[in-house]
């Protein structure tokens, strides 16, 4: 049999190889899955990973789309990664994303049709606060009563989805919308519209912010003592306490960061690409971002690339749905598989494996 010997230092090469290897393996196993679904595996894999970037017919539309879909994934994953390092498991980013959108949109729509330059930044700030408030619930319950944050944050996703329904059918419903569900379109409200910053691409402020946040988190985690404190809390809560850090403060910090960024992603999305609050506003970015955080090895630069790869599977997935009739859920399976391979590969990152020889 095999014997595991813990590595003294995590191998940086293997740590980098892991995600690449996992993506490769997912392509192979995913291809087999596509074959069984009656789709040509080579055509499908090419359409997911190659055509959105390289094909002349699709790339003008899909390259900007990759960044648009990648932005919320990167934003949310950055926030989550800090918590995951500290063993604080916020898995309810989807709910915080929804609440950020509802808070921000409610504020802006309550001022409609007033036009002012202050509305847009205030709306974003309120969206961030909305997401943050939603993540403060699990933070508070964890710190005060030791309630498991995984379960609370997840339950709050379902609550947020109901609030979303309430908003789209009730308090935010467009009064001029002929009774259809959904709010006014924020893109038609100049002061609140998260308009594109590069004409004709759809690229909006959120994309730019996601890039800036990557840099900000890189500095925070690797050039600031806070990053070390967070890692310490995750690896050794006792040592963290002895060094004088207050674990409760760090728990609050982790959930503040992840909630705020999810809220930011939410308000950017609703005022930009989505345009309005509606029942089907959330599409699972909050959950996919968990995969992005791991695929990026909880490292900001890694998360940037992971977000782009994941966005690619979304954009490519839409293409295959369109062109090859591949069911939408196939992409979800694809993403789940990717996470499995990635987590399994960690074995090689943390351990040396030796064949047990004869005595």
């Amino acid at each position, binding site marked *: 049999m095999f*014997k*595991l010997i*813990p590595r003294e230092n995590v191998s940086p090469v293997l740590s980098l190889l892991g995600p690449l290897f996992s993506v490769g393996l997912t392509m192979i196993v995913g291809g087999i899955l596509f074959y069984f*679904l009656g789709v040509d595996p080579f055509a499908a894999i090419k359409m997911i990973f190659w055509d959105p970037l390289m094909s002349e017919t699709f790339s003008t539309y899909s390259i900007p789309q990759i960044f648009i879909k990648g932005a919320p994934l990167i934003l949310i994953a950055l926030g989550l990664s800090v918590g995951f390092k500290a063993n604080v*498991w916020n*898995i309810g980013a989807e709910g915080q994303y929804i609440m950020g959108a509802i808070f921000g949109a409610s504020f802006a729509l309550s001022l409609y049709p007033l036009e002012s330059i202050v509305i847009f930044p205030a709306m974003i700030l309120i969206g961030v606060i909305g997401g943050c408030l939603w993540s403060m*619930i699990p933070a508070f*319950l964890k710190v005060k*009563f*030791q*309630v*498991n944050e*995984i*379960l*609370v944050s*997840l*339950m*709050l996703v*379902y*609550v947020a989805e*109901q*609030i979303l*329904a*309430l908003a789209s*059918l*009730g308090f935010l419903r467009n009064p001029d919308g002929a009774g259809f569900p959904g709010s006014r379109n924020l893109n038609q409200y100049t002061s609140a519209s998260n308009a594109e910053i590069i004409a004709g691409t759809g690229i909006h402020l959120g994309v730019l912010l996601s890039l800036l946040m990557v840099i900000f988190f890189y500095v925070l985690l690797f050039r600031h003592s806070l990053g070390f404190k967070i890692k310490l809390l995750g690896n050794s809560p006792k040592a963290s306490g002895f060094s004088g850090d207050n674990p409760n403060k760090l728990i609050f910090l982790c959930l503040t960061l992840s909630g705020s960024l999810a809220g930011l992603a939410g308000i950017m999305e609703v005022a930009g690409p989505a345009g309005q609050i509606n029942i089907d506003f959330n599409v699972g970015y909050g*959950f996919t971002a*968990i*995969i992005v955080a*791991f695929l990026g090895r909880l490292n900001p630069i890694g998360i940037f690339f992971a977000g782009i790869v994941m966005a690619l599977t979304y954009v490519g997935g839409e293409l295959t749905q369109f062109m090859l009739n591949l*069911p*939408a*859920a*196939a*992409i*979800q*399976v*694809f*993403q*789940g*598989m990717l*996470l*499995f391979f990635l*987590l*399994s590969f*960690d*074995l090689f990152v*943390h*351990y040396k494996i030796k064949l047990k020889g004869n005595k």
Partner: protein
Amino acid sequence: MDLSEINFAVLVASLIVASTPLVLAALGELIVEKSGVLNLGVEGMMIIGAVTGFIVGVETGSAYVGMMAAAMAGALLSLLFAFIILIMQANQVASGLALTIFGLGIAALMGHPYTGIKSPQISTISIPFISEIPVLGTMFFQHDLIVYLSLISVLVIWYFLNRMRAGLILRSVGEDHDVAHSLGYRVVTIRFLAITFGGAMAGVGGGYLSLVRVPQWTEGMTAGAGWIALALVVFSGWRPFRLLIGAYIFGGITILQLNLQAIGVNINIALLSMAPYLATILALVVISMSRFRGNRGAPGCLGRSFVKIT
């Protein structure tokens, strides 16, 4: 609105039906956690059970065959989890999440052609004589086989954990895997078995959801039931009987809110639909605040990887 339209005996009977998927899945997870493993993939295993059970049930025309297939599907998916965390030493929390994401995707893929089909009927078994007792008979003794099985499982699992040597071994593995290992118990094998059992139970729970409780297949139909089952295990303090009571209280809230929706109480449907999730959070808070303290009863090695040191 007329509250008297709600028949109390029927309400309790439907409460039991509503709670049964939770009882089954949570009992499975209880065993898994007692062995020291935290499997957050209950939702994924349930939905795989739901879709497999439904498909096999429709194709064979038998809900019971469907239920068996559901158990097998849940167990099969849990084996994937077991392999990743026990052999590949992956993080349990992340792997459980992966299992849920993966399960939801596979289920949506499998179930797509079966949306909107009716499931085969499951027959209720009225227990002779006692089922004819007014009120009580309707409440407790006119159910299908799975409901009775879920109640028997509570007893069996209690007996297994507290009165049997095998149960003691399972608990010792969960309490301190290094000690159990040095005593010569096969930690990995025992955990493999526990995880598979948990998967099968979650699978049956899911199958019951799609074949009896709803009964049809819709995408994402578990709607957090797996997570609620996880919360129930914490709520119960890792005790089977308290778990049953917790599940029934929870089922009661769900059924009450559905009944209130049905008779058209003047409360917004969205607000009523939130109730089960808010109740779960509240229950977790109450149990943590109470003098029992949240983590009493939690296995010592819960969620920790076991690496054999030789």
